[in-house]
């Protein structure tokens, strides 16, 4: 019996040894781009990758080949260059779920007050320095709490009472975010409000400390050393270097590409600039090849969209979003360009949305705009099919301001609500809303005062032409209107002064991928420059508008995800019932024109800021066909 035990122990030990050997043999062999190998300065790829690199394993992705460059055109940095390469702690999938990205994962305490976020061990900044929890914790405590990046503490980091969270380091690869009251959906909110939650402490610590200490000259001098740019003041510098960090050379990032430091290629305001591959990028493909596949993203600066189209046609540019009117030109050119159609997040065509300021100061106008009959009448007095044909040269169809198919809250009923063309019914509704037809055939207020709808819009946006098509319908229904288009800054000033009555074309469009994730243009008081609620806040809102704000607040304190969706649907139902904004043409999809040499483009997607627009197509996985 004793001998048997001995033999069993030996056998067990042997099995364990064999398993360990097998495990060692299974350590994935990573590959790197020849571009990096040829430079010969970066060492083995396995040493540059974290212990558990993120694997880009979406089904549609094929294993690519290294080399080449993605050729783009641009108008000067910022989000156009930033979103495609942005790396948040977490990111959205194409179906709207959250998945780990820079972070390896997270835990949340039962009371939803403590979130523990785990990072990837061995991950490095693009300059080769270790990326640790210290970078995340320091970013929040030094940069956000002191508003060094001009943005300060984002909503995602505030609890139900508006108090900022505490962010603390647990170990090199773990940190916690602690709230005083339960914070539900923090990770989703983080992925919308802040996204990255980190900055290279080893680069910025001294500069930021000087800013906090009020030693501005010293801070400016350090800032200049880091990125070679001389800033006028620390406020501007903080925002540019810590918020738009990808726009400046010499700032390490976790992105697949970083701005070149080479003279003549390193200014996003220049004629030409390039983002070069990050040798320490922490993602691999399914076969263990370190991403990205292409060596660079190069940008040629142009002045307008027509020039972008021209460069696309002659092959100088590989990728561009294009309008429907350009598709015919692309097809006729015979150039090998693939067109992909993505749905959008906007409600209705952005060029045909009509917003009434429900918070306007004049009481007569306010009562009228708040009356659903008036809004219904304004909606149905337009022959949508005829209008859509004229508006889009028969490219688009009539529609309404409603979520697009596939989006939360979509219903066919809503998409068609108040779309039937019926002038007689519209006139009845104008009358039931309190308007009286005057002798001149146009409606007046009940007290005999003229009612003239003053519509404004942003200049150079095509609104003047849209108005020319719309106005005859309004006139035929008995509504007298005026139109003025003006510079965007003037419109914004008027919006802030609550001086806008009705807007054609949104400054900030109504609709986003989710009313929960980004309620800014859909819930009063959440953002500036939204025409339909003007300067309305919770204090000034009444009725369903107040209910909408309260529901949004309720979401913040609701733990159950299903319950939160239910509340979101209630909020959308309020929009559907009230139709606070109307549109005459259905939302246009986003069209991507992609040179046929580019592989792995996401064929079906949703264009949304929450998804970082083109960012969700993960350009680090694109490669050039041999």
């Amino acid at each position, binding site marked *: 019996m004793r001998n048997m035990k001995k033999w069993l122990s030996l056998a067990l030990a042997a099995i364990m040894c064999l398993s360990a050997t097998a495990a060692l043999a299974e350590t994935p062999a990573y590959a790197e781009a020849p571009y990096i190998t040829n430079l010969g300065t970066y060492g083995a790829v396995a040493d540059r990758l974290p212990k558990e690199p993120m694997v880009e394993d979406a089904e549609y992705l094929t294993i690519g080949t290294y080399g080449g460059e993605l050729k783009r055109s641009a108008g000067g940095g910022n989000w156009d260059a930033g979103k495609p390469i942005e790396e948040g702690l977490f990111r959205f999938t194409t179906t709207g779920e959250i998945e780990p990205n820079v972070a390896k994962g997270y835990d949340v305490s039962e009371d939803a007050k403590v979130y523990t976020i785990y990072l990837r061990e061995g991950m490095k900044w693009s300059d080769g320095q270790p990326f640790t929890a210290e970078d995340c914790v320091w970013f929040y405590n030094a940069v956000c709490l002191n*508003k060094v990046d*001009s943005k300060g503490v984002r909503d995602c980091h505030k609890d139900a009472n508006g108090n900022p969270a505490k962010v603390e380091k647990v170990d090199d690869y773990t940190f916690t975010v602690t709230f005083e009251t339960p914070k539900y959906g923090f990770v989703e909110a983080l992925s919308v409000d802040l996204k990255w939650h980190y900055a290279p402490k080893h680069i910025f610590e001294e500069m930021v400390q000087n800013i906090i200490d009020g030693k501005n000259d010293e801070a400016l001098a350090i800032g200049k050393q880091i990125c070679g740019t001389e800033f*006028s003041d620390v406020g501007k510098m903080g925002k540019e270097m810590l918020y738009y960090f990808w726009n400046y050379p010499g700032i390490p990032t976790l992105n697949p590409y970083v701005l070149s430091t080479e003279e003549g290629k390193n200014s996003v305001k220049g004629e030409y600039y390039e983002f070069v591959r990050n040798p320490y990028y922490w993602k691999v493909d399914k076969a263990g090849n370190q991403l990205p596949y292409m060596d660079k993203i190069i940008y040629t600066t142009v002045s307008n969209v027509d020039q972008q189209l021209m460069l696309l046609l002659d092959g100088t540019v590989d990728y561009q979003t294009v309008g429907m009117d350009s598709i015919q030109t692309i097809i006729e050119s015979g150039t090998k360009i693939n067109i992909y159609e993505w749905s959008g997040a906007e409600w209705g065509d952005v060029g045909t949305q009509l917003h009434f300021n429900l918070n306007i100061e004049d009481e007569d106008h306010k009562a009228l705009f708040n009356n659903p009959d008036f809004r219904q009448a304004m909606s149905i007095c337009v022959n949508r099919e005829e209008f859509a044909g004229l508006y889009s040269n028969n490219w688009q169809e009539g529609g309404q301001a409603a979520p697009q198919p596939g989006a939360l809250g979509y219903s066919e009923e809503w998409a068609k609500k108040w779309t039937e063309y019926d002038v007689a019914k519209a006139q009845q509704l104008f009358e039931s809303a309190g308007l009286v037809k005057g002798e001149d055939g146009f409606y007046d207020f009940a007290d005999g005062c003229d009612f003239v709808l003053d519509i404004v819009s942003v200049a150079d946006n095509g609104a003047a032409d849209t108005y020319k098509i719309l106005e005859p319908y309004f006139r035929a229904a008995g509504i007298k209107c005026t139109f003025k288009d003006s510079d*965007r800054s003037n419109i914004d000033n008027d919006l802030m002064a609550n001086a806008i009555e009705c807007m054609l074309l949104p400054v900030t469009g109504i609709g986003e991928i989710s009313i929960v994730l980004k309620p800014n243009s859909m819930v009063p008081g959440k*953002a500036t420059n939204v025409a339909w609620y003007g300067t309305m806040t919770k204090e000034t809102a009444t009725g369903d508008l107040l209910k909408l704000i309260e529901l949004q607040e309720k979401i913040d304190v609701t733990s159950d995800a299903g319950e939160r969706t239910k509340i979101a649907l209630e909020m959308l139902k309020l929009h559907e019932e009230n139709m606070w904004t109307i549109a005459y043409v259905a939302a246009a999809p986003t069209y991507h024109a992609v040179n046929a040499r580019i592989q792995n483009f996401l064929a079906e997607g949703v264009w949304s800021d929450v998804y970082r627009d083109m960012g969700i197509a993960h350009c680090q996985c694109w490669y050039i066909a041999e």
Partner: protein
Amino acid sequence: MLKYIGKRLLLFIPTLIIISFVIFFIIQLPPGDYVTSYVAAMSAEGEVFTPEDIAYLREHFGLDDPWFVQYLNWIKGIVTEGDFGYSFEYGRSVWSVIMDRLYLTLAVSFIILLFQYGVSLPIGIYCANHQYSAGDYALSFIGFIGTATPNFLLAIIIMYYIYVTTGNVYLGLFSTEMLQNGMRWEYVPEFLGRCMIPLIVIGTSGTCGIIRTVRAQMLDEQARQYTLTARAKGCSEATITYKYCLRAALNPVVSGMAGSLRTIFSGSTVSAIVMNLAIQGPVLLTALKSQDMYLAGTIVLIQAVLVLLGTLLSDIALAWLDPRIRFSERG
């Protein structure tokens, strides 16, 4: 003469002060400021601003001061430190933004100027010497076409023609490869090809005026008695044309060149945008649109200085050439 120049230079100072004041006043005149246009542009990209964010931006850009305080600070910076202010749009000093494009602008404008005079002078002389001939009509017609066609339209037509015939889009003076790899000998033919478009588009716009001036002046001079005398004395037609008539005919052309200083500095604007030329004109337009007031103000101010300088140079040249002006100053 020195007294005359000194007097003109003294007049320079109050004129500049008034001009700078008017420039600044006009630039800040539209409602809103850089922050409003910045917020609008960023909002369009999906960024969200709270009223506090906006107030914060306005404060740290120094835009919450009254405009005349901003003006005085700007002038103080220029006079005491040679600091023309800060470009909000580019995030660095105005002077560095201007210097970025200065050399290319000067080169492009200078070449265009050479082209204009190089083409117009011979044509003007030919037309005068062959008045009412088929050549006179044909060349004048081409000259008028150049002036009558809007530059940007001509640019679009030429670019379209090149695209249709070669399949290449010639936008800007440098191709992406040139910008990426730096200039190499193999790029020279393409670079010259790219230069031809702005040369033809912008150059032809000014040729007609010069052709007509030279033609008219030459015809005037040819009718003068000294020309008749020279011809009677048996001088060759070439000597009469180039040694006598042309020298006299060039006076208005040369004095007109002084006014080109401003154009040389800023270059064309609309055509430069259409052709994607990285010269000063589009920078000015962008600065005006985004209310980047110190940048716009500085460019317009420099243009004003160049106009004044050009006028001064032209006056000096006239005083030197024409004794009557000098005498009237003495008197």
